């Protein structure tokens, strides 16, 4: 229930009420949400990997790749990407004079990824995602993320 609620609230971003409500999502549900987003993110490549696996002669290596290495790579890549995007938040925080700790920015970056990831999955399943589309997704993320940061009041001197 908490996971579904987090997803619904993420779709309402960057509304102020949704930003604040997402802060109240329990850690367990937040971790499940990370997993959900990673699964979504891995879906397009995962599908082609499974298709390749069906056709493959070298089953042992493909099984290792599909069953272990690929999920591990997705989790590592996803975590690094979100951490880097949260670093952008540190810059926005400094420019807009907000007091937001990195752990909160990390959570916000995670939720702000919802729309870009959904659009990436749709785009990848339909056709090969182009560089322009990747830039568009990054811009969409930055707009949502910056608006989320701006919902917080400026620091008092």
């Amino acid at each position, binding site marked *: 229930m908490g996971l579904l609620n987090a997803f619904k609230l993420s779709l309402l971003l960057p509304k102020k009420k949704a*930003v*604040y*409500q997402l*802060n*109240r*999502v*329990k*850690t367990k549900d937040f971790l499940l949400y990370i997993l959900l987003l990673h699964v979504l993110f891995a879906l397009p490549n995962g599908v082609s990997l499974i298709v390749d696996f069906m056709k493959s002669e070298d089953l042992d290596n493909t099984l290792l790749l599909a069953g272990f290495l690929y999920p591990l790579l997705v989790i590592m890549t996803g975590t690094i990407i979100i951490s880097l995007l949260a670093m952008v938040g540190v810059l926005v925080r400094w420019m807009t004079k*907000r*007091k*937001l*700790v990195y*752990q*909160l920015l990390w959570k916000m970056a995670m939720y702000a990824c919802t729309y870009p990831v959904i659009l990436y999955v749709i785009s990848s399943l339909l056709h090969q995602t182009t560089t322009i589309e990747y830039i568009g997704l990054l811009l969409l993320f930055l707009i949502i993320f910056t608006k989320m940061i701006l919902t*917080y*009041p400026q620091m*008092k001197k």
Partner: protein
Amino acid sequence: MTYVIIDACKDEKAAVCLDVCPVDCIIPITTQYIIDPNLCIDCGACETVCPVEAIYHEDDLLDEDQPSRIMAMNHFRS
């Protein structure tokens, strides 16, 4: 509407909430930390970081924790 720190904070005083509060509305008193209801923006950033689950939204408070809310209100009234 605001958040309230209940007396579970008395035994811990971990102060993690101080770091995450974006408007610095949490202050220490002799026994525990309390939230200034006039400054709190209701963002909930403090709620999930509290290691002893001592922070609740006003609407979710149990009857037995109402004295904590009244204490905070009285503290900042003067």
